[in-house]
């Protein structure tokens, strides 16, 4: 069976039967601005249809339920429906890691998965790291102190990857840190200070 791959050429030769796609696409999404203050269920708005899915997950410790278009990517759900815009979209092709969030504690690229793939899971975004009183997470504090960011665009993804990394490698050396951050690109190329920040953050997290 030949299936539709990513390679140019293979793509065109792969006929994928879809049948007629319904043209019904009514969307009435109202961004939820008050999610930070909400401690209970948050409900997104999308007309229920065969093309929608019911989501029920935890985001930064809060229960969230919503009906969304099945096509909704996790990063779109976080940014557009929950207004959690700390999770950035750099490349939108799974390459740069700016959209990294934790899915049940594991770093994943939110632009390269459907929101439905996070159903039932615990999602943590950059907004969920700091304490309720605003005290930065030790990894965030380390990025600030070590000047581990320049424009800051890659930073949310870097910090989330770093938190996952330190959970698994509490005493990571520089080589391990660089290997484990392979999925996160910094277009300001400030890697030196990012590695310092992760080392300092790891030490602070161990305390």
């Amino acid at each position, binding site marked *: 069976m030949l*299936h539709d*791959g990513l390679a140019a050429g293979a793509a065109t030769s792969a006929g994928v039967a879809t049948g007629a796609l319904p043209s019904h696409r009514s969307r009435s999404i109202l961004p939820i601005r008050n999610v930070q203050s909400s401690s209970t269920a948050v409900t997104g708005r999308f007309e229920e249809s065969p093309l929608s899915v019911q989501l029920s997950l935890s985001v930064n410790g809060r229960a969230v339920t919503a009906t969304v278009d099945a096509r909704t990517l996790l990063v779109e759900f976080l940014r557009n429906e929950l207004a959690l815009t700390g999770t950035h979209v750099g490349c939108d092709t799974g390459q740069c890691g700016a959209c990294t969030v934790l899915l049940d504690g594991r770093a994943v690229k939110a632009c390269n998965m459907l929101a439905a793939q996070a159903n039932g899971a615990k999602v943590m975004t950059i907004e969920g790291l700091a304490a309720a009183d605003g005290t930065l997470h030790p990894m965030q504090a380390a990025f600030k102190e070590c000047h581990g960011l320049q424009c800051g665009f890659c930073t949310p993804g870097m910090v989330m990857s770093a938190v996952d990394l330190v959970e698994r490698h509490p005493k990571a050396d520089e080589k391990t840190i660089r290997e484990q951050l392979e999925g996160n690109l910094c277009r300001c190329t400030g890697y030196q200070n990012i590695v310092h920040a992760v080392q300092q953050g790891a030490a602070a997290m161990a305390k």
Partner: protein
Amino acid sequence: MYSFELKKADSVADAAALIKETGGKPLAGGQSLVAAMKMRLAQPGTLVELSGIAELQGIRREGDAIVVGAMTRHAEVAASAAVKSAIPALAMLAEGIGDRQVRNMGTLGGSLANNDPAACYPAAVLGLGATVHTNTRKIAADEFFKGMYETALDDGELITAVSFPVPKKAAYVKFVQPASRFALVGVFVAQTASGVRVAVTGAASSVFRARPIEEALAKSFTADAARAVKTAADGLNTDLHGSAEYRAHLVSVLAGRAVAAAG
């Protein structure tokens, strides 16, 4: 991305029935499929999510083989004590796929069904002479990979697990294409109960066995013996990252490195 219906299956039988009924496609980690759908290279009318199917999960030892469920994530294979002790080359291969985030989502079954010409797992499956289990049959590695993005799977057939025979020794060495992190060329070398096997990924339209190197290594399992074989460039890939001649050269060099790494 075009609209689709999403259905979640709770057993292999359920998934197979849903796919048959709808003509849909299975969704594993989505690391290749979601990307292809975003670019409208794939437009399934229905996606059947496999992540809730318990029988597709997990890693277990069965006699002289390690059996890995189709939905096992790359990161789980990389971290598995059973895999590390029985087939360390397989754990290392999994740890070298893409990056941490990709390894946390991507699955063995998805990688094999996709059969990207530069993917890593096909080299392990072919190099170890593994057996691909599906919901209807068992397919030997030598019969599974048919060409670029093409496998022996029938429409709607689901990979359920892969049984990897434990080799005497094995190693995988990948020359990374730094932008994609896939293999520019990757070579898996194994000394198995049925002889030496050498599988090459990234170099041609699909993974293949380097028979001349296998023959040389059968006589003398040394890095020099592998390196001395001149791999023909005919039929190998040329692209902006490397010519067919360059890839041919890499095949022998990496086979030598893999023999050295296998010890």
